[in-house]
């Protein structure tokens, strides 16, 4: 039995996190329910006029997705940090960047993907038509992984630090602005008939650059936190 290669270790990290997440199904649901509640509050605040809801719908759903992913980020590393698993990851004979990417992928699968699946339901609440819902899902599918990647840096930096949740939002929300602009913008552009091609390709560009930089920055932050 030869020692596991990088890919085996990587998939072990992903599978362990998914298994842990499944054992805590309640936590996953809370993020999802939070997303639905936040989005559903707006019509109560703004009024139920369909045209108005249609125009603010994409923005509201995207902001709700942003807040839900920030909420879920707190649990990304904190469990492993508390029980010492994170230390062992930092001491594994593999590059921490890759293992951190594994944790982020598992986190996205557990919390980001469900947002994409539930979004059309909320879209209907905001009276979005069929192809607007499709573009909404596409933009979220491209956007939520970027949110998890950028957010992971903040989650690693605020490990074991006072005021974690609020501090994490203050650190990360400004960095979410481009994703929010082009995410919500994609749906609006398609509704206005301009086509969402440009926005979606930019979201793809953000995702790729986040994939390159964020795991490395997360690994550096984790090494600082574990010191």
């Amino acid at each position, binding site marked *: 039995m030869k020692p596991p290669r990088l890919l085996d270790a990587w998939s072990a990290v992903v599978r362990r996190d998914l298994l842990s997440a499944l054992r805590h199904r309640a936590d996953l649901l809370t993020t999802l329910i939070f997303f639905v509640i936040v989005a559903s509050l707006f019509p109560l605040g703004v009024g139920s006029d369909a045209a108005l809801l249609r125009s603010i719908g994409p923005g509201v759903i995207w902001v709700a997705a942003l807040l839900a992913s920030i909420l879920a980020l707190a649990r990304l590393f904190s469990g492993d940090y508390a029980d010492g698993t994170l230390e*062992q990851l930092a001491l*594994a*004979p593999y590059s921490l960047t890759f293992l951190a990417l594994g944790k982020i992928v598992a986190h996205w699968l557990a919390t980001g993907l469900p947002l994409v699946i539930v979004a059309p339901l909320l879209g209907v609440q905001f009276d979005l038509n069929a192809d607007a819902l499709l573009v909404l899902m596409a933009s979220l599918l491209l956007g939520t992984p970027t949110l998890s990647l950028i957010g992971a840096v903040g989650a690693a930096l605020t490990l074991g630090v006072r005021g974690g949740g609020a501090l994490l939002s203050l650190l990360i929300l400004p960095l979410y602005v481009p994703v929010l602009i082009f995410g919500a913008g994609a749906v609006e552009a398609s509704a206005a008939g301009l086509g969402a091609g440009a926005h979606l390709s930019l979201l793809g560009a953000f995702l790729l650059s986040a994939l390159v930089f964020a795991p490395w920055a997360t690994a550096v932050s984790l090494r600082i936190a574990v010191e």
Partner: protein
Amino acid sequence: MLVISQLGCVRGERRLFSEISFEIGPHTLLEVRGPNGSGKTSLLRILCGLLHPAAGRVSWNGRDIHELGEEYRAHMAYLGHASAVKDELTAHENLRYSAATAGLAASTTDISTALDTIGLSGFQGIPCKTLSQGQRRRVAFARLYLCSARPLWILDEPFTALDAAALALTRNLLESHLRSGGMLVLTTHQEVEITSPHTQRIDLGI
């Protein structure tokens, strides 16, 4: 061969220790003694590369451990205060995943025998949150059975929360590791007699 030269450590604004130098070769046990807060844990975390020293160098076979990076970590195993056991997973799952992520070759039989020898045979399938602190500590120790290929073991107060039976088991494990040429760096407050071909001591208290 682990060589430490003029090691110094500062925590916050307090200087914990400085000018620490020693060498550890095969078959050697290094005991690190000192009162609470004297920097024992910090010293061990510097040795395993988690913490950067304020001064001095740690080198493994002649090369700085931070330069070696992954290569050094492939020869070393660390057990800290935290047992690195996920509460929601069973003992078996914990070992399977921690072995895979730590780059240890371990088949399911290896894992079950490790858990049996440490005295957890009846508890392999239940989530660790239902285990006692001592049992969880045994799960952490079971991982060391899988680290036989790793020459350098760094253990930070490994015997806490272990009962007499577990103490005997762990002592045998550590002694066999030393006999087979391994190196062991250990901090403990309990008086546990570990016979070892060469024993060195460092006292950080003075």
